[in-house]
């Protein structure tokens, strides 16, 4: 009896297992066929590749393939993407016998999804990367990307020659090139304060304003002469702006170690980039806190700034605020809007880098493209990438859509055509993996004169020194979290000048930071920086 039962249980268990296997088997079978043929193609192509190019000098593209490109963003749902891609694919088919298909990682929980897609071994051909926001080096460590040193010269020759050797150096992991950097695209995300040039002139302020003290004079003059205007309208989330003012007094450079609202840990200076430092523990911070208290008492920003949730930019556009803040990318377009809303306002930007000419470029690997380790057609993937990046026609379609539908060019500048409806005609591909300045169409929404600002930056900029620095938090995760919390609790009040006696407040802030492990984190970062220095300088 017992035996029979045992056998039955075994039998049932086996049936269950088999039925499971059978269910999955069906699906697997179909995918297997696909991957098999895929690998076969890949293999035969590989063979072909190794034989033909050397013999004939031509690349074999007889097999039509689909190249997938992983991008971040929500897939547009209005059908424009399909329309544009159809046109793009006609060109791609003609030139390299391939089609391009974007695969989207939606913003909902994108970090998890992105890392899972890379870890799962799915055959993705091209992948958007970003060393500072997409955990690229760790993914490289896990083997998500293909080394493309050998493929680049042959399959993406223009890009290969155009990217300078030192930029390729920045793109290497363990000595192998694993990504193509977005190194020819100007993006300045250095922060600063925008002020109204017309008012500054009217109030007799020496322009351009290049330090916080002069900025204070501008605010004071507005306070006295323009009673209906808030000198600088700020909402509760903007305490970081005033921290930028603090950093402007130092030579510290940001190394993208996040500690909540404000960055506590920075590089000491460009010359001492392998030394960790903190603006908060700089002796100047006490004086700065005193100045902020003074500014708050004089009413340079609203009394309820700590809880205020309104939009300061609206106030600026309405002429009710004397200043606003964000980075240069925003200034490009805000200037145009302000010229429309407040004609003659001559909106200027004081960049925090102006004070001490301390400006570091954005990492060239903030955007870029890698070839997936499991790509079946890495050669063709690179050929497609080369066309996106180097073929003006393809580039413009991918980035702007179709002329006449998404944009029209008037006087050399792009603008929306009449009858353009955002819901119906809106188009984007979120291609952030190799945009090129030379193909960008000047837009009517960007200030004509922005080049003068770029020129100013170009004179003083230094390359981002931490492009390949991988900050490993494992040992100090708890401390980092605690520090972020302390920052969130105490920093806004100090920076907004609402923390009572500034000297005491700063002292308390520092004490609290030390209590939750500031020193341990400093030591850890220093250790890692030392190791990084060894890696860079050999």
């Amino acid at each position, binding site marked *: 009896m017992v035996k029979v039962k045992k056998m039955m249980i075994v039998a049932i268990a086996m049936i269950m297992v088999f039925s499971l296997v059978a269910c999955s088997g069906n699906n697997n079978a179909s995918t297997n066929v696909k991957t098999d043929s895929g690998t076969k193609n890949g293999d035969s192509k590989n063979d072909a590749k190794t034989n033909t190019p050397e013999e004939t000098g031509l690349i074999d593209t007889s097999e039509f393939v689909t190249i997938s490109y992983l991008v971040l963003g*929500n897939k547009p749902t209005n059908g424009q993407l399909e329309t544009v891609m159809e046109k793009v694919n006609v060109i791609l088919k003609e030139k390299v016998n391939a089609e391009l298909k974007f695969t989207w990682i939606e913003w*909902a929980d994108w970090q998890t999804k992105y890392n899972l897609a890379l870890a799962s071994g799915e055959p993705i051909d091209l992948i958007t990367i970003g060393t500072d926001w997409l955990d690229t080096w760790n993914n490289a460590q896990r083997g998500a990307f293909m080394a493309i040193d050998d493929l680049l010269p042959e399959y993406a020759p223009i890009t290969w020659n155009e990217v300078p050797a030192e930029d390729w150096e920045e793109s290497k992991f363990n000595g192998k090139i694993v990504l193509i950097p977005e190194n020819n695209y100007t993006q300045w995300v250095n922060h600063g304060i925008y002020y109204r040039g017309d008012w500054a002139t009217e109030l007799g302020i020496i322009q351009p304003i290049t330090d916080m003290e002069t900025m204070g004079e501008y605010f004071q003059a507005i306070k006295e002469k323009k009673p209906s205007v808030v000198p600088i309208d700020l909402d509760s989330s903007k305490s970081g702006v005033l921290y930028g003012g603090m950093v402007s007094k130092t030579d510290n450079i940001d190394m993208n170690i996040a500690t909540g609202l404000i960055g506590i840990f920075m590089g000491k200076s460009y010359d001492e980039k392998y030394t960790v430092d903190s603006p908060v523990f700089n002796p100047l911070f006490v004086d700065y806190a005193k100045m902020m208290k003074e500014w708050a008492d004089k009413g340079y920003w609203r009394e309820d700034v700590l809880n205020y949730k309104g939009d300061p930019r609206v106030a600026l556009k309405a002429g009710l605020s004397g200043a606003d803040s964000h980075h240069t990318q925003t200034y490009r377009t805000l200037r145009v809007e302000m010229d429309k809303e407040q004609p003659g306002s001559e909106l200027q930007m004081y960049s925090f880098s102006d004070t001490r000419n301390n400006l570091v470029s954005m990492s060239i690997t903030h955007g870029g493209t890698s070839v997936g380790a499991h790509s079946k057609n890495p050669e063709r993937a690179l050929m497609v990438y080369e066309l996106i990046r180097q073929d003006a026609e393809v580039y413009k379609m991918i980035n702007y859509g179709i002329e006449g539908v998404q944009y029209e060019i008037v006087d050399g500048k792009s603008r929306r055509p009449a009858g353009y409806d955002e819901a119906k005609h809106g188009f984007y591909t979120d291609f952030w993996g190799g945009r090129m300045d030379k193909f960008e169409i000047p837009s009517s929404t960007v200030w004509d004169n922005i080049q003068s600002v770029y020129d100013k930056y170009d004179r003083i900029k230094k390359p981002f020194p931490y492009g390949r620095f991988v900050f490993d938090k494992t040992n100090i995760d708890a401390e980092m979290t605690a520090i972020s919390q302390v920052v969130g609790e105490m920093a806004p009040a100090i920076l907004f000048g609402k923390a009572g006696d500034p000297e005491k407040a700063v002292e308390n802030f520092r004490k609290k930071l030390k209590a939750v492990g500031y020193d341990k984190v400093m030591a850890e970062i220093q250790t890692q920086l030392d190791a990084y220095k060894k890696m860079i300088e050999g």
Partner: protein
Amino acid sequence: MEHSSASIRSDLPSKIVSSFGYLFIGLFALCCFMPFVLIIATSFTSEQSILNNGFNLWPKEFSTFAYKIVFENPQLIIGSYVVTMAITIVGTAIGLFLIAMTGYALQRPDFQYRNSISFFIYFTTLFSGGIVPFYLLITQYLGLKDSYLAVLLPGLMSPFLIILMKTFIRSIPHAITESAKIDGAGDFIIFIRLILPMTTPALATIGLFTALAYWNEWYNALLFLSPDMKYRPLQLFLYNVITSAEFIRNSTASSNVPLRDMPLESMKMATAVVATGPVILFYPFVQRYFIKGITVGAVKG
């Protein structure tokens, strides 16, 4: 008898007690009800008014802009509703059946290996492989990427609900099963004809849990259903509406994203209304099953 009970009812102290009870329950109900009113009111308020005046129980500046954005593609949202409803109904039906069968089998005293099998089930509540193996299992081994089964299967059964079911069925006297056996009924007949009808309260509870889980499910859908699928579950659809609005507003990574004003706060509330509405309508119909105790008097003599 009647007279005395009537006098007790009209007793002053008990009147106070009951009116106190009503008051308390009334207040409690109000506390539950107010947030809903707030959500609905906010969803109809213009964004600027929310920023200036905060949340109010009555819209100060009436606006349906948030709903306009949520329902921008009516076809998509209807499709999402259909997908979610189908998954919820099919999943709950199959899930209930499987859970009830498992629970029944696991409590039968004459099932020799019930303890070891129970252990296998409960073990998974304490230890799990984590998200990466789960992802690999679904996409690589089962090949369910872009298949609604990837959302349906993981939600079918949960150890907790099996325990709940098992415990409930245990309260049905074993004598009933035995008596049916004497009458010549097979195990499956016993389960369908006797056990299932007697477990209605448990089935209602567990059904509601399962249905709610399916209704609110978005994470598996997010992981396994790619944007290439036209219709995806409602919660994911709404979540995407919010995140894309949020991203467009805070966009720093790209200057190419087309900007427009997003009524973020009122949109959040509008999506909440869209997502919870049907559940609120559905709830009263299931509720009556919770109250019943059916086994009373089944075994007599």
